[in-house]
């Protein structure tokens, strides 16, 4: 369990964007860019060169959120000690405003699969994830936020609901939560539940960051809608509406726009951040 004095999330309750190197100049030239930037930890684990130079420079001007995509918190095997050491090093020198990872697995038997893979919500998984999060927070020396996944299928063996599972992880480990509102919408559509009732059951008090992103639409074998979390387009209206539903209950939070494939011009990304600002502006202070 993490000591509460190390729960040091310092992201402002403002819009942020996922940083893409092609936007470097515009972000620095823009008079009013965004409140903060998020980076994928693994892209900044080289020894030097342009990525680290850009990050050092950006970190002097913006709060930075370090978002890991490769730790495999839900992996059946032990966490990769080399990767944990690299995270500790990055978080150590950068001293970011926030550090987060995913409720997922991606590495098995030292093979990294480059995707966020799903987990059964069982007591056994719970124990393992809590032990891994304890190890991460102990090693990195600060609180981590855990993000809810987008789900395309369910496990027969699951015995917990996702909100209860996340609440219990946060209670046992002292980790914070990163609520991906698009992921809730995607999972709710794919697994046929109400996104509002998910939010009603979700421990909003533990949320320190919100994610929004675009998804693609497909169909399953039975002609039912199958939404895919692609981060390759604008956030859709029902997800903006769900954001309002969340903010009405949580109060202001840092809100991130994620756009990772078919990355658009800065102006398009910036317009999405403006829309997030409008959503934050409409909640009473």
């Amino acid at each position, binding site marked *: 369990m993490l000591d509460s004095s190390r729960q040091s999330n310092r992201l402002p309750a403002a819009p942020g964007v996922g940083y893409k190197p092609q936007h470097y100049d515009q972000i620095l030239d823009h008079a009013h860019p965004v409140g903060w930037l998020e980076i994928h930890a*693994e*892209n900044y*684990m*080289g*020894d*030097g*060169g*342009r*990525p*680290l*130079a850009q990050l050092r420079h950006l970190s002097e001007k913006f709060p930075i959120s370090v978002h890991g*995509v*490769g*730790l*495999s918190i839900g*992996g*059946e095997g032990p966490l*990769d000690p*080399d*990767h944990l050491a*690299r995270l500790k090093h990055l978080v150590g020198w950068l001293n970011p405003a926030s550090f987060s990872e995913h409720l997922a*697995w*991606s*590495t*098995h*038997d*030292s*093979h*990294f*699969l*480059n*995707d966020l*893979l*799903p987990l*059964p919500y*069982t007591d056994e998984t719970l124990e393992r994830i809590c032990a891994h999060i304890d190890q991460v927070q102990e090693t990195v020396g600060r609180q981590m936020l855990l993000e809810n996944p987008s789900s*395309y*299928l*369910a*496990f*027969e*063996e699951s015995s917990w609901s996702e909100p209860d599972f996340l609440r219990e992880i946060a209670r046992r480990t002292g980790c914070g939560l990163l609520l991906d509102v698009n992921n809730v919408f995607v999972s709710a559509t*794919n*697994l*046929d*539940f109400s996104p509002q009732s998910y939010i009603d059951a979700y421990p909003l008090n533990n949320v320190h960051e919100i994610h929004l992103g675009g998804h693609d639409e*497909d169909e*399953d*074998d*039975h002609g*039912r809608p*199958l939404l*895919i979390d692609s981060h390759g387009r604008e956030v859709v209206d029902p997800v903006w509406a769900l954001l309002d539903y969340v903010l009405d209950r949580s109060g202001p939070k840092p809100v991130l726009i994620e756009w990772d494939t078919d990355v658009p011009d800065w102006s398009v990304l910036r317009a999405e951040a403006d829309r997030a600002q409008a959503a934050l502006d409409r909640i009473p202070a």
Partner: protein
Amino acid sequence: MSVSQTTFRAALLDPSAAVPDGLWDAAERPAGRRFSVYRNNVAVSLTEAMHQAFPVITQLLGSQNMDGLAGLFLRKHPPSSPLMMFYGEEFPEFLAGMEQLSHLGYLADVARLELALRRSYHSADSQAAPPDALAIPPEEIVLAKLEFAPSLKVLRSDWPLFSIWRFNSEDGAPKPAPGSEDILITRPEFDPAPHLLPKGGADWIAHIQAGLTIGEAFEHTSAEFPEFDLGATLALLLQGGAITSVSIERLAT
């Protein structure tokens, strides 16, 4: 019915394998193509990573052929680390072992070059020695030892590797002529660039890296390559900011 990650991964990497039991939709029907979303994410993201990592190979083979090769490669060599910036380490060897590509013997060396450029891009930063660091009397130069930037990389090839690379990445570059070419990669600031090394240059650099003085390295190199051009080699290193320190052990007087 529980699904282990071993089972999940095996089905993920083998498109012909059955979807594991114990995965279902909201109506408790078998997951079917819902599982394919994960299969697709893995294959597409790793294929995309291979295209980005090996742009010249992609250009030489064509995008569709590269898709096919990447599909075979990623199943044989899934990434061994979450650092995707270094994915594809085994690709040169994989290409060399592909019988269908044996008529393009130079492909493996092109892949080695693309890997080396990426490693150089992510290497630690360093401070180049001042431009006048070697403006010293010739009798002292031969006694000097050099240290190189971590971003310096050397590739030896039995193929005209530099000319092949140029022909496929520069407009109007001349057609490669037969012969062997060694390459020096330097990274003046953030962008690594390959240069053609004079004959013997790769040996001379290896001698310097082993701790020999400029003079000793020159003697060893010119014994094998009488035409070795030390001045041209030093000029490439200096222009690329690849020399980080010059130290001279003066003889006791």
